[in-house]
């Protein structure tokens, strides 16, 4: 039943998911800054306004708080808005509506409403856009009950998880790494979903488990390739979802490999890696551990403008290789 292999970019995959959802469900519509004729800052909405019209691909004023609130209100009253932040950094302006309203409304109202809003956050560094346009803030939202928070790493998952998000009755926050937008990969035609809350073993291995998020999945796979040449067999888990966290998949892997490394781009302190370490350290898998749990994450700095500095503050393939090598060789 699978369609012929077909490659789309990550951005195209998202666009296709939105188009399919809008075709299938009149309640679905898009809101965001410059998502219409401009096509979105990263050309994710592209030409959708031409297909669906300005009523369903709505340019908003530059009003993140109000815009997010409008999306929340529309979602509470029967619509299924997909709200695009131009950069995830601007979520800082809308945390009130995301955290106090969208995440808690159903609970505060005793189950009398659902808030089926999807919010999309282009995130991450690597574009030379400096400290206010390069942040990775998924850990914040992962800390908030009532939200679901996902980070698809491939075009396939971007489409499938976005479709799952749109169909989800609760607010789903999607962090999309900007450097992934142009990455191509096989994407089935038509409708399919990839479940929210399920991690995936991208590469099986015996010696060490690497749990990676978003763009780091690819870097971890690259590192695993290198290390395979050295006889180190790395298992790579693509976390996919920050909340609810698929603890079971990680625990099972660590039971097998006895070693754990996590890697993400967001700042290390209080990042997803901390939660992964803590999950294992409090689980039965603790007893299987042969070595300390290593975390790789963003440096404890804002993202600098200078390109060399910018690269230095996020984990790169050689950093991952070195960390795993040290761990497996007992140097850690």
């Amino acid at each position, binding site marked *: 039943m699978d369609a012929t292999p077909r490659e789309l970019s990550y951005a195209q995959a998202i666009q296709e998911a939105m188009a399919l959802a809008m075709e299938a469900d009149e*309640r679905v519509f898009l809101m965001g800054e410059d998502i219409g004729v401009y096509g979105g800052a990263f050309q994710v909405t592209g030409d959708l306004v031409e297909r669906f019209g300005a009523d369903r691909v709505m340019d908003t004023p530059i009003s993140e*708080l109000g815009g997010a*609130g409008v999306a*929340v*209100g529309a979602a509470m009253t029967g619509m299924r808005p997909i709200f695009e932040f131009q950069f995830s950094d601007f979520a800082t302006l809308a945390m009130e509506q995301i955290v106090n309203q969208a995440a808690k409304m159903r609970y*505060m*109202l005793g189950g*009398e409403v659902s808030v089926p809003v999807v919010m999309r956050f282009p995130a991450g560094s690597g574009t030379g856009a400096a400290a206010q346009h390069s942040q990775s803030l998924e850990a914040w939202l992962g800390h908030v009950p*009532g939200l679901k928070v996902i980070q698809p790493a491939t075009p396939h998952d971007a489409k499938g998880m976005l479709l799952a998000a749109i169909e989800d009755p609760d607010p789903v926050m999607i962090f999309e790494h900007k450097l992934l937008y142009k990455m191509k990969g096989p994407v089935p035609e038509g409708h399919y979903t990839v479940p929210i809350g399920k991690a995936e073993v991208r590469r099986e291995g015996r010696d060490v488990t690497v749990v990676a998020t978003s763009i780091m999945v690819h870097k971890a796979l690259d590192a695993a390739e290198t290390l395979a040449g050295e006889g180190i067999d790395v298992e790579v888990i693509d976390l996919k979802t920050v909340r609810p966290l698929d603890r079971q998949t990680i625990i099972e892997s660590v039971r097998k490999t006895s070693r754990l490394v996590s890697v993400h781009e967001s700042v290390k302190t209080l990042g997803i890696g901390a939660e992964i370490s803590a999950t294992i350290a409090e689980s039965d898998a603790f007893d299987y551990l042969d070595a300390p749990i290593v975390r790789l994450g963003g440096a404890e700095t804002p993202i600098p403008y200078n390109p060399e500095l910018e690269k230095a503050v996020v984990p790169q393939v050689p950093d991952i290789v070195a960390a795993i090598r040290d761990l497996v060789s007992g140097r850690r």
Partner: protein
Amino acid sequence: MGAARKRTASGDALANLPFAFRQYDAATLRDVLRKMYLIRRFEEGAEDSYTRGLIHGTMHLSIGQEASAMGICMPLQPADQITSTHRGHGHCIAKGADVKRMFAEFFGKTTGYCKGRGGSMHIADVAGGNLGANGIVGGGIPIAVGAALSAKKMKTGKVVVSFFGDGANNEGAFHEALNMASVWKLPVIFVCENNGYGMSTSTERSTAVKNIADRAVAYSMPGVIVDGNNFSEVAEASHAAVERARAGEGPTLIESKTYRYRGHSKSDRNRYRTKEEIDDWMTNRDPILAFETELKEFGIIDDAGIEAIREDVKREIEEGIEFAKVSPSPDVRDVAQFVYTEEPA
């Protein structure tokens, strides 16, 4: 409300009557009085229950502002929606909620509108069109615009009212929401209940314009000022705004000037205003008293009729409190219920 029928009377006599007395029949007008009493007695009952330790947390009473809530809700149909504020009991009752389930909510019971999860600050009645009070000043304003966007997209013909206070008009959310509502010509009515203070801070000290309604020009929408303690004036403005909204002509900003008798919340020392000021409003500008006087003047009710309403309301309040008392508390094991729509297995 909404079920207003025109009174029959000769054209001339009618023209001199205040709007409400032209617009509504006697039964409707008596029901308005009853509801204004219901709001006041509800809040007095809640206050009393709080003092007795039956309700915990805090609460914000709208005693003195009843005409504003009632007047605004008059032209609303049951399916129309409102968003409300921390001072939202009056809005909730005016929109048609049952005081039983409101008390039950305040008592933290499963029979409450929010099943004990929300309390006073999140009182809601979604089925009745109240999308909820809000603990965040200004938080409900963009949500109302979103609801109005739904109405427009789904062509339901609904209008949405967003209540907020004078203090809220200095929040960015106010600005952003009013701008979008106007650009998109949405069926929403912004109702600023200006009771002179945001907590302790007077509008003079916080707000760079004299009237909140003066800000309407910044959004190219009508800005209307009404005496919020005059039911008829409020209702008239609301009717006009609702008509405009239903006709697809876009939003209106109504500033309803009123006053709260009680402190901001249960922890207010009332240092920012004088006893004289409070007394003046209570004695000379009480919205219920004023409405009663008018009703009597136009022969719609007499003292006995008023007394009967009061008795009836008293009984309803007592029953409501009793209902709340005997209702069950949520099971602590269900604490994670309603976090998500699909509960984890």
